[in-house]
């Protein structure tokens, strides 16, 4: 799934990036203009320098030195100003493009629905928002500042050379063509080599990463030498590839020197003949030679831009992919704005993650759940417990049939209204850096401290929060690393409770909470929010035993849907799970 961006057409990439740079159109246009101005000034300077020597110093004309020198200062100041403006506009345009790309991507990611998110890895999205954007910013700045400047420099120098002596200047023309062909064919090859070596390089770093995070396993199995040998082999291979690619690149410099020197010699030789014949002046010969460097340096510059831009195309495509991704689940045209009841019904629901033709994970499910019921869900790994309840708050859309909340198809609700009424505590839950209170208020922005505390008491989170030095103002580190698993789970439940939902879904949300607290939380639900429909997915039978009814899932189908006692006598799977967890004495697990 990750590499689909490679097939994105270049036109689309350019249009997408182009629309983000529109805000900085003026800057983007002015930058090359000022860069060209700088080049023009740069071209005048050698001419003035030659004039100072030829007409000032050699004949000893101080006046000429002073006036031409003054002129040169003016030109230099203009050149400086153009350079400064170019620097300013170029930096703003490229930083602006980067900012807009980041904003646009981030906003689009926020609109992604779960199926969209499943297509990308977290690391993939982070890379796109950071490294990829930085690559584009650098390439764009380079492009703005150099792309016009280099050709302009070549053109101006050529025009000037030809105006001096067309015959001699054809030598340049030949040289430029020769170099252009050489540089570009070589760069094509080199870029390919580099693309290859960078993929391998990424693999190498990946293996370092694996070793860093898996060091305990490496050491436990005494595989230090084995891993080192593997690494050394890979590193040597990469070294060879790098050397092969870079050896190609270093041909560049000698070839360019060769061309420059050949031009100098040829022009000097033929120029000398022409001067002797009176067809050329010495000053003109000097100027012709001065333009030689200008042309060739600019050509090198162009080839460099070419490399830079082609190296950033992968980044551009990855960014475009995210920007162009369309959310799969969107608001209906005329959304229902109110959830009237917490009843839930599944009517002939079938579901598969990748469209109709892929494997079904849910098969013709029919369920009717009344408002205020507590529903337990059990089943083995991969029996589609989560897939079933994910449909209620429309995290995914059904493939067939329909899911109704309060008698209305979930696809007809306004998404925000639906999700605020269906509080879903995810299996893989996250807290965010900030205080406990701030995290709780994700549930309801304007909740008072008292309301937050009530929710925490109900989720049995208040007891540990009160023991923290700063209580509700305690800072949560990134990823909630300063809380234990059970504490995090209880906070996540409290956060969901603050929505005051009609339906509450706990997807294995108390797995790290000890049995006693778990049962206390469930008792709280019974006593304080009896009107809320509750779904509880659990591994522990003790967590669902006292539910009104229990759904037993097996391979995407409902194998049983009844109370604990009924299931024990009628459902084989349920009985098996129950027995595997009990030993006649009591039901429990140890807190982890």
């Amino acid at each position, binding site marked *: 799934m990750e590499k689909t961006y490679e097939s994105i057409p270049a036109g689309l990439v350019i249009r997408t990036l182009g629309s983000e740079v529109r805000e900085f159109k003026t800057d983007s246009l002015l930058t090359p203009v000022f860069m060209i101005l700088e080049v023009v000034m740069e071209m005048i300077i050698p001419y003035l320098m030659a004039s100072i020597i030829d007409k000032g110093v050699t004949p000893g004309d101080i006046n000429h030195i002073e006036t031409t020198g003054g002129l040169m200062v003016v030109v230099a100041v203009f050149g400086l100003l153009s350079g400064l403006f170019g620097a300013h506009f170029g930096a703003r345009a490229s930083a602006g493009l980067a900012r807009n790309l980041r904003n646009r991507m981030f906003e689009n990611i926020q609109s992604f629905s779960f199926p969209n998110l499943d297509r990308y890895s977290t690391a993939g999205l982070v890379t796109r928002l950071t490294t990829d954007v930085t690559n584009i910013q650098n390439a764009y700045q380079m492009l703005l500042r150099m792309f016009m400047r280099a050709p302009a420099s070549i053109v101006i120098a050529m025009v000037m050379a030809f105006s001096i002596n067309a015959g001699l200047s054809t030598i340049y023309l030949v040289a430029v063509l020769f170099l252009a062909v050489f540089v570009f064919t070589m760069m094509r090859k080199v870029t390919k080599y580099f693309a290859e070596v960078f993929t391998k390089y990424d693999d190498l770093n990946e293996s370092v990463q694996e070793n860093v995070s898996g060091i305990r396993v490496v050491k436990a199995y005494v595989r230090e030498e084995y891993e080192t040998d593997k690494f050394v082999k890979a590193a040597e291979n990469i070294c060879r590839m790098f050397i092969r690619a870079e050896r190609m690149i270093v041909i560049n410099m000698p070839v360019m020197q060769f061309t420059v020197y050949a031009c100098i010699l040829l022009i000097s030789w033929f120029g000398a003949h022409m001067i002797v014949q009176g067809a050329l002046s010495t000053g003109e010969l000097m100027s012709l030679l001065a333009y030689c460097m200008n042309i060739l340096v600019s050509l090198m510059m162009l080839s460099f831009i070419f490399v830079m831009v082609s190296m950033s195309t992968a980044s551009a495509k990855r960014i475009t992919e995210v920007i162009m991704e369309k959310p799969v689940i969107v608001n209906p045209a005329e959304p229902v704005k109110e959830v009237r009841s917490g009843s839930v019904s599944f009517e002939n629901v079938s579901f598969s993650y990748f469209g109709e033709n892929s494997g079904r994970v849910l098969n013709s499910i029919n369920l009717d759940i009344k408002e205020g019921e507590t529903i337990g869900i059990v089943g083995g790994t991969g029996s589609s417990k989560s897939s079933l309840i994910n449909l209620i708050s429309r995290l995914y859309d059904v493939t067939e049939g329909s899911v109704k909340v309060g008698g209305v198809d979930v696809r007809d609700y306004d998404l925000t209204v639906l999700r605020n009424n269906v509080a879903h505590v995810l299996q893989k839950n*996250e807290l965010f850096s900030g205080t406990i209170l701030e995290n709780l208020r994700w549930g309801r922005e304007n909740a008072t401290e008292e309301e937050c505390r009530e929710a925490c008491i109900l989720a049995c989170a208040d007891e540990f929060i009160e023991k923290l030095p700063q209580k509700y103002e305690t800072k949560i580190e990134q990823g909630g690393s300063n809380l234990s698993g059970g504490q995090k789970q209880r906070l996540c439940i409290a956060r969901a409770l603050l929505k005051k939902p009609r339906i509450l879904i706990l997807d294995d949300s108390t797995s790290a909470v000890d049995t006693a607290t778990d049962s206390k939380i469930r008792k709280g639900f019974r006593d304080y929010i009896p009107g809320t429909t509750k779904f509880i997915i659990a591994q522990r039978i003790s967590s669902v035993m006292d539910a009104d009814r229990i759904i037993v899932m097996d391979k995407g189908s409902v194998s049983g849907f009844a109370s604990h006692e009924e299931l024990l006598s009628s459902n084989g799977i349920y009985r098996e799970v129950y027995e595997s967890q009990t030993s006649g004495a009591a039901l429990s697990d140890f807190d982890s």
Partner: protein
Amino acid sequence: MPEVKVRQLHGRRIPSPGVKVKNPGKIFKRIMDRIMLKYRVRLFIVIICIFAGVLANVQGTLFTKTLIDGYILPMVKSGSRDFMPLLSAMSRVAVFYIIGISATFIHQRLMVDISQGTLKDLRCELFRKMELLPIKYFDTHAHGDIMSVYTNDIDSLRQMISQSLPQFLNSLITIVSVMVSMLILSIPLTVLTIIMVGISFAASKTAIGISGKFFKYQQDSLGNINGFIEEIMTGQKVVKVFCHENEAIEEFRKKNEQLFLSSYNANQYSNILGPINMQLGNLSYVVCAIAGGFLTANGISGLTLGSLASFLTFNKSFNMPVSQISNQLNFCLMAMAGGERIFSLLDEEAERDEGYVNLVNAVRAEDGSLKESEKRTGLWAWKHRHSADGSIDYVELKGDIVLEGVDFSYDGERFVLNDIEMYADQGQKIALVGSTGAGKTTITNLLNRFYDIQDGKIRYDGININKIKKADLRHSLGMVLQDTSLFTGTIMENIRFGRLDATDDEVINAAKLVSADGFIRNLPEGYETVITGNGASLSQGQRQLLSIARAAVADPPVLILDEATSSIDTRTEKIIQEGMDSLMKGRTSFVIAHRLSTVKNADCIMVMENGRIVERGNHEALLKEKGRYYQLYTGLRAM
């Protein structure tokens, strides 16, 4: 020539000017020493080639003048048509040019070998060293920071070795030779040129200072926004569930705007360096021309018109290398910061191992004594070489493990284990239970000597484990950790990680033993399926099955299972229980689990709390005791 910056496309940190390095000189010397050690001759050739290149270049600059003054003008004056002298002069120059070109080619080609070779060696050395570091290092350093040594820091060194250093040398040689020529021509004008260069230097220093400040802001806001992105992307599904999208966007926009401002300013000020240096260079030319004109006109200091012309040519070729040198210096400084981190990793102290007792395969001789065997016999022995008389004892590996009065602290201050007494007889299953932070995992860390104890003794078949070679100790212990850590490669390779000489059949049998065979066969390529990124495409439960299979194929005498089945649902666990039981049969096993069914049939259950063992006994005995275990078991008390 506009400055060319190759920015790295990989890694997190973007190099910024203004980095502080404690001792750049020392680090530079260490890098150079390394290069000298292996590439002394090649480096010497490179330096000679750079010299030759500079000289050829100077020849080229001078040639235009001699061409006109020495050949063309005399020919024009005399009306001679004899081009032979010119031809021979040009041939001489051509030879110089060819030398120059060859020198460039040779030096660049050699530099590729030197820089890539040095980097490869550094990389390998880093990795080798890393594998030798104690677990403590990984527990106390952020993994991202270790990674960035391999990516960013190595990259900045490459930049320095392959580009900055040769260019720096080149510029230095050019500057010195040009300076000497200028001094010969005119001392006052040289002083003037140096003053102008000083001004240009000061100006670019200011610009670098300002841009450095903004680069730091940019780094900060980049770090800030990266942290935010990582957090939100990780919790993106939670954001959706709580309809928190708009708040996230608003926050992001704020941070992004900050980044934009600092990035734009940082780039703006670093962009102006080029124009400032160039135009100040032009100014220097004008100033010298006017001053020189004044000097010659008034006959001061004996400056002739011809030498003024030459001086001005040199003035022009003086400015560029000077502005380049400051650029290269900056790059070098950045590289030194990277070098500092590289060497600090290389200087870390490796895991120490003073053990001398080895693990060997053994056979039992007819008289009942043990003999060493070449082949794997299923019987192991500790080979104990006595230092006093050089005699060798063989002690059968049974798996008796005894902890006596063990105290342990990670930081030397707060003790996480206190006075632990534990006896595991051959073939026993010992379970450790208790809440998070009670010290269960710490005990396993001590058994395989990931950490060393502060006080007390751990004996393995009567031998103090400090005397056993670490590698052999760990070979005798099969570890299955909660954090599964698979490696990029096929499933087959991942299981075989447990024992490298295991045949395919042995691997498959191990997988069958732990009931992993079924799901593996359902994968598209079966055992040859390549898993990447720590097996992200597998479920946590499947990964745990693979890591159990890995331990099974290793076939170790002692097993340590730390929450090995926590993500496997109870039904599947029941299915693999048989396999687990046969795996544990006859082996001493330590099991940490919070699931009752896993620990119930242990020979001895240790209940831990706050680094102490508070209860011990088997399931029935502990239930009768009605103590802590009973409370945990019946859920009567919240923890």
